[in-house]
């Protein structure tokens, strides 16, 4: 560990900066929750059940968590960007390579520091939310004790579900982070690889949605379609909740309902899926780090395989994209030749996509030959 001090110092700047960002985001989330809770408490006292009926959507922990989750994901993207700025600059990259550290050590420290930077603020978020949750239940308990003859209905997410959600969120952070890292080792342009990673995460979802619109499969099978959609978009895993319920009963005649709703769908499957995803990312990162070479830094893609995956992906997606746009604007004019026109648009889109992707994929491999 001691000998890695210099590496840690290199990574410290970017990760510390982002750590502060994550902390701010999480603290804001906690603050928003606290404010909303207090407001709710006061309103309950003022208006009682009447207020509640007028405000059907009392649930706010979930939206706040979604908010912090999205901001954190954004932060993770920024984190990866900052972590790789140095490496991708030719001069600094050269200097780093000449230092007495192996590629693997550098990668390991980078990933470790990166994960640490959002873990600590996240732990603070968890701790804070648990406290707030407890205090909220306590508040509602208080209200209940005062208004003995009324039903106090409050929707709140059960603490177990909350913890499960946090776990899933954390795993998704790691999964997205590792995936962004992975693509950084595949493509040599910092910004380019980030854009590629984001698009790659969205692409499967887009292909299924658009494909199912155009080719009308899954149209009838709503449940299957929704299931596929839910599993295709990795960052969305912690967010799809459905109504479940639990009730906190008193031993009395009067019922006090704390309706805990919202359970995470297919929790077990998602956890397993994420573990697999993370595992694959780690394996590929390990392999790619070993084979990273400075002399390839002119080229955009280190490996031919990655280049072709990129090209095929862009081709398919641009075909579907053009067809989608067509469905909106042009096709209402061609109602008779609907199907044929769609295919034509797909082909045109695919061709355009292919040419653009091919040109992009060739970036860098020209230069040396001309020399």
């Amino acid at each position, binding site marked *: 560990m001691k000998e890695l001090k210099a590496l840690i110092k290199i990574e410290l700047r970017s990760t510390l900066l982002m750590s502060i960002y994550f902390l701010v985001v999480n603290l804001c989330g906690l603050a928003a929750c606290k404010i909303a809770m207090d407001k709710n408490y006061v309103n309950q006292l003022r208006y009682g059940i009447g207020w509640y009926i007028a405000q059907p959507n009392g649930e706010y922990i979930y939206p706040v968590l979604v908010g912090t989750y999205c901001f954190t994901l954004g932060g993770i993207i920024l984190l990866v960007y900052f972590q790789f700025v*140095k490496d991708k600059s030719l001069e600094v990259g050269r200097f780093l*390579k*000449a230092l*007495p550290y*192996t590629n693997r050590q550098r990668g390991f420290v980078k990933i470790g520091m990166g994960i640490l930077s959002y873990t600590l603020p996240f732990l603070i978020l968890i701790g804070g939310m648990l406290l707030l949750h407890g205090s909220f239940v306590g508040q509602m308990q208080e209200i209940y004790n005062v208004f003995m003859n009324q039903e106090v209905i409050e929707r709140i997410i059960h603490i177990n579900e909350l913890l499960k959600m946090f776990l899933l969120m954390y795993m998704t952070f790691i999964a997205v982070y590792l995936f962004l890292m992975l693509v950084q080792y595949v493509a040599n342009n910092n910004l380019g690889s980030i854009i590629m990673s984001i698009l790659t995460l969205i692409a499967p979802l887009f292909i299924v949605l658009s494909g199912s619109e155009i080719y009308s499969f899954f149209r009838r099978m709503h449940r299957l379609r929704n299931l596929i959609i839910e599993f295709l978009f990795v960052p969305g895993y912690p967010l799809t909740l459905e109504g479940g319920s639990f009730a906190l009963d008193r031993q009395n005649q009067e019922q006090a309902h704390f309706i805990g709703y919202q359970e995470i769908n297919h929790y077990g499957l998602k956890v397993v899926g994420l573990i697999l995803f993370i595992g694959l990312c780690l394996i590929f990162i390990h392999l790619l780090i070993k084979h990273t070479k*400075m*002399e390839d830094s002119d080229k955009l893609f280190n490996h031919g395989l990655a280049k072709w995956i990129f090209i095929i992906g862009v081709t398919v997606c641009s075909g579907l994209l053009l067809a989608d746009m067509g469905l909106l604007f042009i096709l209402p004019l061609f109602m008779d030749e609907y199907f044929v026109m769609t295919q034509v648009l797909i082909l045109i889109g695919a061709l355009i996509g292919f040419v653009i992707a091919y040109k992009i994929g060739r970036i860098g491999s020209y230069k040396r*030959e001309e*020399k």
Partner: protein
Amino acid sequence: MIEINDACKSFGTLKALDHVSIKIPKGCIYGVIGENGAGKSTLIQALVGIYTLDEGSILIEGQPVYENNEVKRHLGYVADRNQFFKGYTVKQMMDFFDLAYPSFSVEKFEAYNKVFKLKKNAKVKNLSKGMQMRLAIMLNIAIGPRLLVLDEPTSGLDAIAKKQVLDLIISEVEESGMTVVISSHHLAELERICDEVTILNQGKVAYQSTVDDLKAKVKKLQVVFEEKAPEDLGKWPEIVNLDHVGSVYYIVTDQYSHSFEDKLRKNGARLIEPIGLNLEEVFIYTSTVERIEGERGKDERVKSFNKN
């Protein structure tokens, strides 16, 4: 100390290094000379573990250098541009080197800085190119490296800075016995401080010898012939350049020896006077030949030159 064996490296279709072999003994100050694009930078970067080789090997004290931390800990590398990290100050770079290299000595760095006088809290990116170079050299020598590799260290430096830098290198070699490899265009400095040199041309080794030998072999002779100069003088294999002003011939040979002088005398030379060439001129004459003569002529010459 350093063994470069049959090193080959290509970038696409361009062969940057073509079967380059060099042996560098410990404590030597070794120069690598060549035009732009001759392969100097590629060789240097392969030597410090930035590039891999397609074929061949580079061993430093018997160990390969690529991804080898143990070797790199005692290896100092000064690139032609040394901006280091954005926003770092001189002091922060010093601290960084202290962390990264176990044998780094802060006292040594301070001692050198008494001569170079860089402000500790100056940001590296605000320093001039010359000052950045001086910083890089100070940092790397303060490591106490066994091998110091410099890529164009004197380009962009004024005369005073150049002297300070070279003096520092000379005294450090004398004191610690470190080995130095320098690649440069500035041959005037190289020839004073280098023990041996390799001249690279299009990725291949064109000449390789000690500086003294090189200058002993490659000489310019002012020759006056008794009558007319021999007809085939221009085609003599020992002659790389021929010029004349009136009846005075200026012959540049890369195989100077007494037998060559005798050959000239046998062909009617009355007066032969050697004119000193500096390394730059040696380089120019030996390089332009390749372009005129082509591959075969050059190979023959290199073989005979290196044999002698």
